[in-house]
């Protein structure tokens, strides 16, 4: 196995240990805990009142436009990291190129801001 494969073998091992550990905790709890279920306990909790109007109510997500802007910027970050490791080898050229890239996105952010997207309605 080469180094990268060994790294990911370790990651998988950590994931398995995490899962088994969590499962173990739940199993111990299952053995120790009481189990007296009744109908009232299984209702959705609404501060003591009886639940009304179904439980998956409609919710207006105020920030769905944010999510689009977020996606664009998140991809930008994914590009920034590899660029950040090598940009000094290419000098001013890489600097200008990245500034154009960031600038265009920043312009988009300013446009969204002016359009009132960044407002919790």
């Amino acid at each position, binding site marked *: 196995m080469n180094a990268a494969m*060994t*790294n990911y*073998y*370790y*990651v998988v*091992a*950590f*994931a*398995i*240990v*995490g*899962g088994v*550990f*969590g499962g173990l*905790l*739940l199993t*111990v*709890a*299952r053995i*120790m*805990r*009481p*189990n*007296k*279920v009744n*109908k009232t*306990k*299984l*209702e*959705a*909790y*609404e*501060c003591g009142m009886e639940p009304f109007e179904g*439980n*998956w*109510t409609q*919710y207006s*997500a105020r*920030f769905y436009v*944010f*999510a689009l802007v*977020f996606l664009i*910027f*998140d991809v930008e*970050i994914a590009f*920034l*990291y590899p660029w*950040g*490791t*090598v*940009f*000094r080898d290419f*000098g001013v050229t890489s*600097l200008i190129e990245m*500034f154009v890239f*960031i600038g265009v996105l920043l312009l988009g*952010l300013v446009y969204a*801001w002016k359009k009132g997207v*960044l407002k*919790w309605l």
Partner: protein
Amino acid sequence: MAIARPFLIALALVIFVLSNIVFFMWAEFKISGRVADRLGPMETGRFHGWAQPLADILKFLNKEDIIPANADKLIFRVAPFVGFIPVVMVLAAIPYTNKIFVRDFDIAVFFVIALSSFTFVSMVMGGWASGNKYSLLGAFRAAGMLLSYELPLGLAIAGVVMLSATLSLIGIVQHQTVWNIVLQPIGFLVFMVAMQAELQRSPFDLAVAESELVAGYSVEYSGMRYAMFQLGEFFGLWALASMAVLLFLGGWHGPYLPGIVWFFIKFYGIFLFLAFSRVSVPRVRPDQLMDLGWKILLPSALVNIVITATLIVLVPHYQLPLAISEFAILIGALYLMRRVLK
């Protein structure tokens, strides 16, 4: 033996981190007690309530586990694992000194950021699957927080990556002859704020918000399943506080004492900061949170990147000019904000 080794290391690390978490819990009880002019736990275990976290764990184990009748049962059961497993995986990438580490990942920074934001996925899963209005609100708030805070966090770290030209955490620490907090004060501030949001700690605990949403995404969770969310949060604290130490505070560098001691001194410094800011800053509103993320932290992180990149490329000995210009901008911006807010 070579096959079993990673599993044993993982188990040992999980137990080590857990024992620290027990201490975190006790320290937080005591600190938040003293700040509020209370004593905190005093009875359990006789000496200053040292056994209180252990008693809490026993209580979690003995608590009846209730899955509401109209919950989405599969997702309800899976959600705590989604919150817990990724933060355990993060432990594989975190070095403590240049000798004591699990594996030296060449993309460690990416790896830690990517996995530690799984907490939000687990919150949305748990909150949605509970079939409860409070928890649905909590889940949406968690999603909104992820949208506002992932970007400043990633961009603040990008500045550090540019300085050291590597994504390996060991490489980043070895590159810090001057601690990055001196070269990147803006990045450090942005990172510390975004980190608290990522950890769902009190100024930014909108998705939990006991006083508004009862317990947010975790209303319907009880017993050990709830405790797993909490554990995941504490493991995340371990990961991100270590990241703060490694990226900005020079990791294991320090005079006289051995590296591992320095690492944990700095680590517990960050922990104390988190514990105090939790009890001294009131919770922000969701719209304030989005404003803070998008209108203050994101632009400042971008400014930080632009300054850092320009100075690295154009100035041969960039360290002193970089530190001076960053501090000048930081102080100027804080002064301006004070003027505007008055």
